[in-house]
Structure formats: C-alpha cells, structure tokens
C-alpha cells in the first residue's frame, strides 16, 4: 500500500493550487457569477495542458486517473468557474470514437462539453457547461451525437452559479457513434465524470471545512472560542472524518481505473455518493457554525454550500449512485 504522491503529482497539485489561488480567488469566483465561467481562468488552464493531458496519445504524457483526480480536487477547493471535468470527459469521448472534432478542442478553439443523461423529448436537460461551450456530446439512446450549441441552448440561472443549459437536439445532428459502441462510450464517459466529480466534491468539502474550522477558532461566545464547545468540535470532527474517507475512496476509485481493477465501476459510483454526502454535510456544518454571518453572501462559505449541492445534482442524488454501484456489484436487474 502506498498513499503518497509522486514528485510529479505533488508538483501538479502545487501548480494548480497556485494557479487557482491567483485566477480563481473568491473575488474572481464571485465576479464570474451568475454565469459561472471565467474566460481568463479557462485560458490559463488550457495553457497548462489540463485538457490535453486527459487524452494525450503518448502514454508518458497522458495523465493517470489518479493525476486527474488530484487536479479535480484542486478545482473543487477553489470552486473554480471553469468546466475542466466536462471538457476532459468530452475530449476522451471524441478520442475514443476517433473524431476529428478533437483537434480544435486541443487547440483551444472549441469548448466541447457532455450531456450526462440521454436525450428525452428531443432535449438534453441541465447540461453542464452548455451555457458557455461550443458543442455538446449527447447520447439519444441509440446514437452519440455532437450538437453545436449556438441557437440550440437555453441557459438557466441556478443555485450553483453554473453555466447550465437545456439543449434542443436537432434531427440532423452529427453522429459520432451508434448502437453498442455509442452506449459503451457514453457509459464510460459518465463513469469518468462521476469519478472526477467525486474528487472535486472532496475538494469543495475539504475547503468548506477549513473555512468553518478557521472561523470557530476565532469567533468567541461567552468569552471563549466557539470551537472549544463539544457540540461544535464534534460535528466538525465527524465532517473531517467523512471528508478524509471520501478522499481515500475517490482516490481508490481512480487508482482502480488506472490498474483495470474489476471493482473500478462500483468504486466510482460509491465514491460519487460518498463524496456528495460528505461535501454537503461539511459545507452545511461549516456554514452553520458561522452563525448568522454564514447566511450572508459576504462570507465565502456560502460559495461552497451552493456548489457542493449543484456540482453533484446535475447528475443525480446519492441514492441513484448507490443503485448504480449495486448494478456493478450485483449485476443489473431484469
């Protein structure tokens, strides 16, 4: 067993920590609301090669799944307004089907995202990043399609200040794959998204917890720091334990994918469920222990409370992830 980071992984984490610290400060995150996209930040991330490393044909340059999970955790810590995970997952889809649409993505000319749920009634609903992307990969139950978003999208404001949009899927959309291949590639993409989003949610929860801990050390009531009260300290200890557990599980799922472990799909769905619950709980407690200030928009903790919910909910609730894990563990029901 080895839970340590390689030198390269530690360098990646440090570089992203610095980059997000500069280009996704809480001020920048607020300034990007309500759309939830910062073009300056996005250009920095592209320049760092964060999308390319998910699909690089040269195995020496391609990031491992653990690398991507570590990067996603940093994104979550900053609640960074840039659709890194969607772009990485969509790029992998384009690479998997050998689409020429990958090239402009890697050149930074087009931003391609992915719809997590199949088309229903001619539309893909609540597609992440669709309010700012150029194209979306969409699965209609039979075919994997590439849909230009100009004129096809209806963005909507949302609790997480994310660039979400409903997407109308035209009958003549470009076909990337059909039949069993389309289904398999889309399932794989959803797994990738769940796994990386689990890591991002761990980052959200971990940072929210830090904000809560810092606040209860400073804030006094009845003459003592409120963090000395067991009702406060014990709740935060539980949240810290849950976040550590969620991080280990998200990293194990990423490692399992890297080594083709037969439990990879199950661990991925479990990691998403556990990370969603841990991030929601940590951000709730951190906000709550700020007292009335936590409820104001001036404190940063609310940024985390909203995204802990929204980043996960575009796919679905924890119970749905548990059922997905059960499908992997017990086989699908008839």
């Amino acid at each position, binding site marked *: *067993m*080895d*839970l*340590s*980071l390689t030198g390269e992984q530690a360098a990646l984490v440090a570089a992203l920590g610095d980059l997000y610290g500069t280009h996704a400060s809480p001020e920048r995150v607020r300034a990007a609301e309500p759309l939830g996209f910062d073009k300056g930040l996005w250009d920095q991330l592209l320049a760092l090669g964060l999308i390319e490393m998910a699909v690089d044909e040269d195995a020496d340059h391609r990031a491992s799944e*653990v690398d991507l999970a570590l990067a996603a955790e940093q994104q979550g810590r900053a609640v960074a307004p840039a659709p890194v995970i969607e772009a990485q997952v969509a790029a992998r889809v384009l690479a998997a089907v050998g689409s020429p649409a990958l090239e402009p993505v890697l050149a930074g000319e087009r931003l391609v995202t992915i719809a997590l749920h199949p088309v229903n009634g001619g539309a893909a609903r609540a597609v992440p990043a669709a309010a700012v992307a150029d194209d979306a990969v969409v699965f209609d139950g039979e075919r994997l399609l590439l849909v230009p978003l100009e004129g096809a999208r209806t963005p909507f404001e949302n609790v997480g200040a994310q660039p979400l949009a409903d997407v109308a899927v035209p009958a003549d959309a470009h076909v990337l794959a059909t039949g069993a291949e389309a289904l398999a590639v889309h399932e794989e993409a959803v797994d990738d998204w769940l796994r990386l989003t689990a890591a991002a949610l761990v980052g959200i929860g971990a940072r929210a917890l830090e904000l809560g*801990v810092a606040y*209860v*050390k400073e804030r006094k009531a009845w003459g*003592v*720091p409120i*963090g*000395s009260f*067991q009702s*406060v*300290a*014990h709740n*935060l*200890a*539980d949240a*810290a*334990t*849950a976040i*550590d*557990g*969620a991080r*280990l*599980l998200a*990293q*194990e799922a990423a*490692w*399992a994918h890297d080594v083709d472990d037969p439990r990879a799909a*199950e*661990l991925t*769905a*479990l990691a998403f*469920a*556990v990370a969603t619950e841990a991030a929601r709980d940590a951000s709730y407690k951190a906000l709550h222990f700020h007292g009335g200030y936590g409820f104001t928009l001036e404190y940063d903790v609310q940024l985390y409370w909203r995204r802990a919910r929204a980043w996960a909910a575009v796919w679905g609730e924890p*119970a749905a992830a*548990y*059922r997905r*894990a*059960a*499908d992997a*563990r*017990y086989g699908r*029901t*008839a």
Partner: protein
Amino acid sequence: MDFRLGPNADALRAEVAAFMEDFLTPERVESYYRSGVSHDPAFTQELIARGWFAAGWSKEEGGSERDPLEMHVFMEELMRHDAPTYANGVSLQVAKAITYGGSELLRREIVPKILRAEVICALGFSEPGAGSDVANAQLRATRDGDDWLINGSKMFTTNAHLADYIFVLTRSNPDVPKHKGLTMFLVPTDSPGFEYQAVYTVSGERTNITFYNDVSVPDTYRIGEVDGGWRVMTAALQDEHGAAFGVRTERLLAEAEAWAQESGRIEDPDVRTRLARVAAETEVSLLLQRRAHWMTETGTVPEAEAPMAKLYSSEALVRASEDLADLMGPDALRSYFDPTAPRNGYVEHMARFALGTTIYAGTSEVQRNIIAQRGLGLPR
C-alpha cells in the same frame, strides 16, 4: 498510489482464512458465543504451531516478524471469522508494556510465558467511577516497605476469571494533578485479597468487576516509574487505537447480501440502495484503517487518523446493523444461532455487538475530542 496490500499480505490472508474456515466450525463459534468468552486454548495452540501467535514480535522473542500491514491483515481475518482472540490480544499488549517499562524480573520471567501463551493477562483500567476519564482512577496503591498495598475496585476487567495477571492502573499519589499520580502494576490473580464477579453484557460477552482488598504486590511488579503510569498506559494503548471494525461490517454485509440473494429481495431497488450504502461505508472504514496502518508503517504516528478509523468504523457498524435489521423485518428479531433465524441470526447478533464498539477502546466522544484537537487544532 497503490491500494493493494501487497503479495505477502495477500498470501498471509489466504493462508489464515483457510485455517480459520477449517478450524472455526459453526459449533465452535457457537460455543464461544454461548460462553461469552473470547478465548480457546486449543485455538491458541494452533496459532502458536503456525507462528501466528506473537506474529508481530521478533524471531528471538518467539514471533514471526510480520510487518504492520501483514499484522493488520491477520487481525482482519481473526475478526472476520469471529476467532476467540481477545485474551490473546490483551496478553500480547501487556507483554509490550512490560517490555517497555517492566523490571528485569518481569521481562525475563513473564514476557516469554506470555509469548508462549502459558499465561493470560487482563486489563484493569476502568473503574466503577472512571471510564473514558481513565486518568481519574481512584484504586489506591500505597508503599508498604518493599511492597505495595492495593485497595479499590476495577470495572470491565474482561477475562479476569481466566487471567494469571491483571495489568492495573493505580492512584499512587492523590496530591498531584491526576495524570501525574498514577502507577502501573502487574497483579497476580492468586494474590490474597483479589476477587472478581461476572458482569454480563448485551452482546453476550462476559466481563468482570474486580475487587482489591489489601492486595500486596512486590515493587518488582511495578511497570514504569512511580507516578509514571500515564506514560506506560498511553504506550500500551497505542495498539488499541488500531481497533477498528471495517471487517465486521464487511462480514455483516456479506450475510445480508446472502439473505437478499436467497430471498429474492436483491431485485428490489430499495434493498440494492441500502446494501450499496453499507458497501460504501465498509470500504471507507477499511480505507481509514489501512491509512492509519500505512502511516504507522511509514513512520508517522496517526494521531488523528487512527481515531478517525475507530470512530467511523464503529459508528458505521451501528448504522449498518440497525439498517440491515430494518431491511430484514421481523426475521431480524430471531436470535443468533436460533435454528429459525436467517443466516444464523448474524444480523441480530451484530445489532447488539455494535453497541459496545462505540464505547470500548475510547468512546466516540473521546475519539471526536482527539480528532478536533489534534487533527483540526481546535481549542480544548
């Protein structure tokens, strides 16, 4: 990163599991349960014959030099198979403490006997009026020439009725802050003035209350400095902090899954959701435990991380046992080893067993204090 435990650990697990499945027949496990005592000399002899008894000790000491991760795997398999090991585990813990702070006499005379399983030790820490606040011990030790006189009582001295020695925490100096007036002794149970009474628990495990009435102990049976008992206790309890219950939940889940498959309920989406939740909490329990062992192996003391493993895995076992009992409905009421009980009544048993796990080896509240203070840096 690598989440595998390694070929040595995997091979050991397979070997240990094969032996357990062979030796620990349902009849034997039932007899341990009915007796309430987690000890079987025949089983212990089998461990000794395989070099597994003092597996973490050096070869000169009679052990087999297993590393912390191998020991972790070994302990997991003991737990998974309900092996009767509590008296063994405690005795070895006491041997560690004697090695750490015992007199030449005790190290020469007692430790080799413990490592050959010729003597059994029990712990005398808690008192009727001091549980989690163990440093508040009131059982008195007073100087009596070259000897000490011990007076008072201890609670939860499990296996006192089998033990040859009790590792006892005493109040040697009542006039200094409570942590600074404690001294540890090894008390022979055949000492005049020592008595015990059985105390039975909800899980079926038997423990004892013990009484010390002018029990005389030679100074050579002191472990550590006079008034230095807290340091010895802390060192002895380091191992206990490794206590965690992920494997219990894993076994419980396996029984519930077998029930769900046999009854056809496995097709029910609600059943699947709930089983998968237990699978998630099992995985997290095991990961937190293994992280603590990995830290120990790589030279870092898991100050907050071991308490996280103990806290999470015990609370998860309580949640899982309650929820899986709910899932099975009235059948979950049928008692452990009752012939009409599904899966031998294991779920019924765990619902009771789980109660103790959030209490002993440091309650959940104590674990949360440690995590808050040492992990998060919150003020006392």
